[in-house]
């Protein structure tokens, strides 16, 4: 589990990030799910929103913003952000490919898939980003989709049965053709 704060690189995000209006509304809605004196419960959902809004990772500045938003001490956010593996503590490429490496996926070729993706993207697993800045490769543990192995998760989407070159190509093509990041669910709500 990544626990090392020294690992965090200096941010290139704007000095004082701000949540969009849509995200602020979503956060307000989420806070109502918990008792009034238990705002801290909203921490994980708000960290997910923050990571999606600010380029796929949570910089120290973004973590401080989350702390301010929920009236927490920054340390309460840091210790949580570093405990859970979904939060990236370093800048990432446009698309983070999370490849499942656990037993059942390994039985159906996840090692071969990882090697194949390293060759195709030019990035190495372990959080490295491809030279073109498009792909970061990360190995993760079981994604609860073992019957459709091997699996890659990109943001909220699962790409399944990546045991043929065609399926892998289709995934990469789809991601390469994505000009902007997808509209986030709270942005979609605000548009309606």
């Amino acid at each position, binding site marked *: *589990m990544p626990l090392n704060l020294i690992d965090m690189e200096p941010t290139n995000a704007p000095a004082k990030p701000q949540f969009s209006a849509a995200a602020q509304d979503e956060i307000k809605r989420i806070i109502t*799910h918990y*008792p009034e004196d*238990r705002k*801290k*419960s*909203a*921490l*994980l*959902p708000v*960290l*997910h929103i923050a990571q999606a809004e600010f380029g796929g990772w949570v910089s120290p500045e973004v973590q401080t913003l989350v702390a301010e938003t*929920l009236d927490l001490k920054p340390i*309460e956010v840091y*210790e*949580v952000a570093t*405990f*859970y*593996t*979904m*939060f990236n503590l370093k800048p990432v490429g446009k698309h983070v490919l*999370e490849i499942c*490496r*656990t*037993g*059942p996926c*390994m*039985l*159906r070729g996840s*090692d071969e898939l990882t090697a194949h993706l390293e060759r195709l993207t030019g990035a190495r697993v372990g959080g490295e980003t491809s030279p073109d800045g498009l792909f970061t490769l990360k190995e*993760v*543990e*079981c*994604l*609860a*989709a*073992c*019957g*459709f*192995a091997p699996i890659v*998760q990109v943001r*909220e*989407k*699962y790409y399944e049965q990546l045991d043929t070159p065609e399926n892998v190509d289709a995934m990469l093509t789809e991601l390469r053709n994505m000009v902007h990041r997808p509209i986030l*669910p709270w942005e979609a709500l605000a548009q309606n």
Partner: protein
Amino acid sequence: MGRKLLTEHINVEGIDTFEVYRKHGGYRSVEKALKTMTPDEVVEEVKKSGLRGRGGAGFPTGLKWSFLAKPEGVPRHLVCNADESEPGTFKDRQLMSKLPHLLIEGMITSSYALGANTSYIYIRGELLYVLRILEKAISEAYANGFLGKNILGSGYDLDLHVHPGGGAYICGEETALLESLEGKRGNPRNKPPFPAVQGLYARPTVVNNVESIAAVVPIINDGGDEYAKLGVGKSTGTKLFSACGHLNKPGIYEIELGVPVEEFIYSDEYCGGIWKGRELKAVVAGGSSVPILPKELILKTAAGEDRLMTYESLSDGGFVTGTMLGSGGFIAMDETTCIVRNTWSFSRFYHHESCGQCSPCREGTGWMEKVLHRLEHGHGHMEDIDLLVSVAKQIEGNTICPLGEAAAWPVAAAVRHFRDEFEWHVTHAKEAARPGAVYPGKAVLA
């Protein structure tokens, strides 16, 4: 084909919408419970059904509910465990994404039984897309008067929320889950106090698996006695198995408990046999935490009886010649599988997921991973094999939560049944370390 109580309508077009779900008999259990039954009567039906927790431990659900403390003036909570992260298990994800209203219906009926007015579904963070599906279904349930104030004019109020995790297997352990829901690191709590007395926000809380809560729907609709007629002995009702690995037809199967393992693996109704026309070598029958069994022992018990898909039959023989039903994550391995590599992969998983609170688990999982890694990569020694068994033993019983045991059991079982293969990794180190190397011998039968 056996009866399906949960997944009968799973492939109906639009079943994820309130309207279609309702047309297929949805929300009847809520009407029946709230209009014609007291909360205690609902608990009683669940007790009668014999339903056992589907999250892995198999503890009787009705009994668990009856332990819930009910101090005057203190709110109580029902929390659904949708953290599903046990390798090999992917049933809850399927159930929630295809039949979101089934879980919501189960949550309403169960919350009513427990007297909870605010309930939560804690879903693993990777499944944010399923969270969106659930949230949409929840808003439909509110709009149709099945959630919110005074549900169906009964005077009962319920709010239901979905809460995402952040990527940590340990948050499936119920007290770690509650910590996580409170916005903290997922460190399991010391017990007692148990959640039934001090759970979420130190209030009395019941934590149940997705499938357990979904099963409450048919139990209330048809009665606990009807439910208990299905299955064998103390393994009542139906159970979802998620089948994966080297099978022709991996996927989710709802079966009446009691189907023979052999039929489950080989019949076309279920997994359709082993892929590529190969032989079966071994099975992990209940998620990565349960002991692995070689083909001979998964198909037949040591006494030579057919092994059945029930809690009792799968654990027949204890840990010497048996295993556990666990979460129903059924992982099949063909004859080309390297047991050492597979065991190493699972150890790496547990080391990665240990929360680090207790030293036997934090250090022991790391040690096992390291030793298995060197065995697999051709640098092992003969003593390493007993070292593995000894480390596994020292973790067992010495930790705050059962993750330690979950890490230890698979290693101990792999060495027990496949010691020859481990030894071959030392005597034929170079050969064994080649990618795709296949051990030429056979498993040891206890």
